[in-house]
């Protein structure tokens, strides 16, 4: 049984721990790795930072006025079809 985690596994466990609880063995191995690896300690904090800021992401896409007019014509033509 491998006792020492690599950083790839440690960072995976950190991502998973956001949503599910780790087993005792996972938690122990992860905490040991983090004690010894400052890079994964940075990742732990940065991963959390990304998670809390992710929810605010927005988008600047818009329809042009012409596209909206086309949509309106399109919907009107369907309504006429339905009414027939």
């Amino acid at each position, binding site marked *: 049984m491998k006792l020492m985690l690599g950083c790839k596994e440690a960072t995976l466990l950190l991502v998973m721990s956001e949503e599910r609880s780790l087993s005792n063995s996972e938690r122990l191995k992860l905490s040991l790795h983090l004690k010894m690896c400052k890079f994964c300690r*940075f990742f732990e904090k940065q991963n959390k930072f990304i998670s*809390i800021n992710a929810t605010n992401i927005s988008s600047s896409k818009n329809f042009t006025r012409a596209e909206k007019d086309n949509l309106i014509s399109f919907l009107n033509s369907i309504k006429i079809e339905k009414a027939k």
Partner: protein
Amino acid sequence: MHKPDPENWVNLYSDILLKFAYQRVNNEEIAKDLVQDTYFSALKNLENFRGEASEKNWLFLILKNKITDHYRKKSVTGLETEISNEKFYKDTFDEDGHWYKNTTPEKWNCDYDSVIDSEEFMKSFELCKDKLPEIHNIVFCLKYLDGEKSDEVCMKLGISSSNYWIILHRTKLQLRKCLEKNWFDL
């Protein structure tokens, strides 16, 4: 009881529906088609609108389903290809699973527990998000923008739980690396 008002749908909701769709499919043309399909579906099914939700929420529900269908229609091979592409992992970690010298995270000069309320930061973040491969992007959106739990996401997209974690892991690694370079300038 809310009575739906199709006359106003386009003017009231087109832009917010488009933003929502574009974030999730990362393609302007497809996003616009999905919005049009949403209106079409809604109009066809007007009789089924019972007014339990607002018409805005009802339109969003239809759009969400169309986005899910869009992803489910993608070929299984396409999905498998994206998941089995080990390049990012191989470029980030060596065979022992350790960071390479040039991929190790740097210290960021920020309060890690704070929300950064700046337009430039958001632009940077969006730029990084736009670089995510397709399935990675939709998993990111479903989890962080829609608040869905892993089993809901797996069910919607038809992916296994272990693939979900791999996708999410790579997504966070990639976003971290991109933000470090483009926002924090490290």
